[in-house]
């Protein structure tokens, strides 16, 4: 649309034109500016682009397609055929009590666990960045080590630590049953916190390291304490990093699967519809793929909307 009417224009900022362009008059006024290095660009973009299309875009499309189908049978023992069912599956999703319970459960989980985890990560990052702590290298590493433990393994490990008969802290676990229906969600929250605090701490800490020192040298000379500097200088500057960690945490929370799935072998309180993703999994192993696909679509949409809203909301706040 904005293509210049003058022919022979290159993309802005292109390399010096050495060769006089062959006299190829632009046929239409809508001729596009010529792109240089088209072959190279394709070679750079296509490998990722193809895989992204095949393993991201196509599955999303296919899930939506599957979610619009219903299975129809002729008689009780007749052949099952898939026919277009419109939004039938989505009506079932919205009528599905356990699914919405699981959504509420992970939202409650996120509302408590994410602030605790990020609050701790921020505190540790600020302490590592302050002159108050000695042995920064050691602490940085010690706090980060749990991130090297896969969620499944972390859940197995904590499952033993919580267990009333096998735990090394039996004095505690014999009196408080962390695997009971009331507490198991928070027991899982602790596992997730244990794994991810160090990771988030490092992202925030790297952002702190990127702040030029002179920005708070002035505040220091004015006599501001560490707490004051952290609150009024450092935290505002690293807000983008904190927002990034928050978005990844929100996504992770809605997707909870490995930890509760492992906990099912430790606690009967974790049902097959404990989290949205467990619902998807157990629905697909019935098998009821069309309903499972509808669950997947609703979950992905919810995740996208939630993280996107959060992003917009915080950006607007930043701008003020």
């Amino acid at each position, binding site marked *: 649309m904005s293509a210049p009417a003058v022919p022979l224009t290159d*993309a802005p*900022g292109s*390399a010096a034109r050495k060769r006089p362009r062959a006299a190829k008059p632009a046929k239409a006024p809508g001729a596009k500016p010529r792109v240089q*290095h*088209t072959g*190279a*660009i394709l*070679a*750079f*973009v296509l*490998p*990722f682009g193809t*895989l992204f299309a095949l*393993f*991201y875009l*196509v*599955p*999303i499309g*296919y*899930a939506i397609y599957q979610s619009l189908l219903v299975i129809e049978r002729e008689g009780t023992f007749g052949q099952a055929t898939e026919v277009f069912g419109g939004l039938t599956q989505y009506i079932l999703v919205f009528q599905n009590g356990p699914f919405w319970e699981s959504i509420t459960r992970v939202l409650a989980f996120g509302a408590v666990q994410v602030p605790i985890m990020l609050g701790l990560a921020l505190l540790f990052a600020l302490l590592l960045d*302050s*002159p*108050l702590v*000695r042995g920064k*290298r050691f602490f940085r*590493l*010690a*706090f980060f*080590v*749990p991130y*090297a*433990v*896969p*969620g*499944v*393994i*972390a859940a*197995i*490990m904590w499952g033993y*630590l919580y267990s009333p008969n*096998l735990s090394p802290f039996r004095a505690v676990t014999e009196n408080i049953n962390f695997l009971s229906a009331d507490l198991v969600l928070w027991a899982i929250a602790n596992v997730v916190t244990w794994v991810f605090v160090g990771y988030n701490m*490092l992202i925030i800490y*790297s952002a702190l*390291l990127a*702040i*030029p*020192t002179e920005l708070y*040298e002035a505040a*220091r000379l004015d006599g501001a304490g*560490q707490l004051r500097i952290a609150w009024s200088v450092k935290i505002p500057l690293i807000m983008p990093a904190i927002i990034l960690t928050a978005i990844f945490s929100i996504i992770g929370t809605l997707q909870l699967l490995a930890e509760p*799935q492992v906990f*099912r072998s430790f606690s009967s309180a974790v049902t097959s519809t404990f989290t949205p*993703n467990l619902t998807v*999994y157990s629905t*697909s192993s019935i098998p009821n*793929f069309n309903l499972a*696909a509808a669950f*997947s679509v609703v979950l*992905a949409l919810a*995740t996208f909307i939630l993280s996107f809203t959060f992003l917009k909301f915080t950006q607007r706040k930043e701008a003020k």
Partner: protein
Amino acid sequence: MSTLTPTTPAKPARGIRSTEAKAPRAQRESPFARVSAMVVMGVFTIYFLVPIWWLLVAASKNRSQFNSTNPLWFADFSLFENIGNLVAYRDGVYLKWMLNSALYAGGGALVGTIIAGMCGYALAKYNFPGRELIFNVVLGGVLVPATALALPLFLIFSQISLTNTFWSVFLPSLVSPFGVYLSRIYASASVPDELIEAARLDGAGELRTFFTVSVRMMVPALVTVFLFQFVAIWNNFFLPLIMLRDETLFPVTLGLYAWNSQVNQIPVLRDYVLIGALLSIIPLIIIFLLLQRFWRNGLSAGSVK
């Protein structure tokens, strides 16, 4: 410590090392603040490390001592004996799982990083129609969690009889939208246009310029992308869970999960789960230690934006 005064000229941006060098300023902080900071760090060090310590101790005991001795201290040290038993169990299926994990995660992260780096570089350094559109679609991909894709991928793969194969887990793991995002940000900031221009004048092709010149400047970002993708694949659970039936294709996480769910029927598996869990976290710790100099620099690039 030295007697550096706080008037040392401030550096434009602090490197990793310079923070340690600023220690002399600590003299100005109140002892109370310092002590409480160290107490907080100390308490949480216990919180983060005790579970792993317990795992190490538990994995070093034989079965009779597991419940009868102090759970946080060693009894007879039979760790290597236990490892031997684990490796011998069922014709070494555990080693097979570790190997599978290394292939899925190592191969997937390597190829994935190269293609994400190439794509991010092109988005940063070339002008072409649709560039912003591609970038925005990929950014949207960052927000679409991989687990949401596992089920549709399974349905597609079962149409073409590709479920329960190595490729059904390997191929989807190659895609890292976050890698493209980080590579683009980093390439914009750290690969100068003049350098690419100079390589062009020397007659190097675009691809050659990328692989010989630009890649070098992108190393911190690429190492970061590699590491995080490696961890993501190594930790991935839903995709293999839903795709794989054949035990010999399992990654180690899925294998240990399967054993852990059978502990009640086959009690000996409890020992193997604990030893296997310990062994499975060692490779990641080693990789993080070896590459930490690189990824710490790369991380900050992503968060600055």
